């Protein structure tokens, strides 16, 4: 049972990749990439969790109370910013691809073969 939360992260990674590979629409594909990314959130938070630990905010709580790991939360915050921005970049590329070719389907774009 103690492995289960980790496996959720691995599962999210794989199912997100499945979406990326089989996607027929770049917008959908970018969202699948966000699913892959969410697996890293799950993994990071799972790693820092401590049973019975409180959030690492010591407002009105004495220092020394068992708390979960603040570092992974800080890392996850970075991770979220990375995602938001990468998604914005990818969507703008998708907008331009659609404008240039009239399609968002990767199957219909073959100009770069060879």
């Amino acid at each position: 049972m103690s492995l289960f939360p980790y496996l959720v992260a691995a599962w999210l990674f794989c199912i997100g990749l499945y979406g990326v590979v089989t996607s027929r629409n770049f917008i959908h594909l970018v969202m699948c990439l966000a699913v892959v990314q969410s697996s890293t959130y799950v993994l990071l938070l799972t790693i820092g969790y401590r049973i019975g630990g409180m959030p690492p905010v010591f407002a009105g709580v004495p220092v020394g109370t068992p708390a979960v790991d603040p570092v992974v939360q800080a890392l996850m915050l970075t991770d979220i910013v990375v995602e938001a921005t990468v998604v914005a970049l990818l969507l703008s590329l998708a907008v331009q691809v659609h404008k240039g070719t009239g399609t968002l389907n990767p199957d219909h774009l073959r100009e770069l073969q060879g």
Partner: protein
Amino acid sequence: MNPRFRRYFFLISVVAFFGVFAWGLHDLPPFGHYRGPYGDILNHVAVYERHATDVVTAVNFDYRGFDTLGEESILFMSVIGTSLLLRPQKKETDNNDGKADNSLQRDLDESERRRAPAASDAARVLTLALVGPLIVFGWYIVTHGQLTPGGGFQGGVILATPPLLVYLAGDLKTFKRITRQEWVEAIEGAGIFGFVLVGLLGLFVGGAFLQNLLPLGQTGSVISAGTVALLNIATGLAVSGGFVQLIYVFLEQTLEVKLRVQGGK
């Protein structure tokens, strides 16, 4: 590869990949038993050393403040990159000079079809009434990052929503009037530059880049935790400016950019 073959090829690969992933995970410490030491040390020392009650913010803006400079720059580069990619192409124009009246062009120009019906009065009143409180709330989140969950990133995103609400309640013209691009770019650049500047001041005053240079203040007060508060404000500026610019370029691209050449696509 055709789609069918690709799917089977991938399914076989991903099963193996999942196996490798799971093999690596099964040796990790069991769930709920974080062993430290990094997080535990910080949980113990951050409140004393930084006078910040929110340890996550202390990590983000002090102990690992350099990461946050990089992270803010990722946002910055992506915003600039998005504006670059979505700039009007040579065959397009983004000014409403009446060319869109040509009916042939209107058919080809998708932006015409994306016009939403005007918002109802109820929606207008409600969204506009939210603008003031949201600005106050965003500012509150930015300035209280060292005390409670929140900080420059979260507050910056909240501060970027009022212009979006104005667009939803009104129209693009109003949105563009209140978000002059020169100003948005200046705010964003000022946020990044402010972060670098605080870092350099730390270098001159304290001896290391991003070293604290302000009095730490009283734990639990708004003016505490030294440079953490300054960095939060710089980040808040950069994030709010960045997100407003993202909204701006996407709205402009989808609603206003017109084909310049008639009938040509």
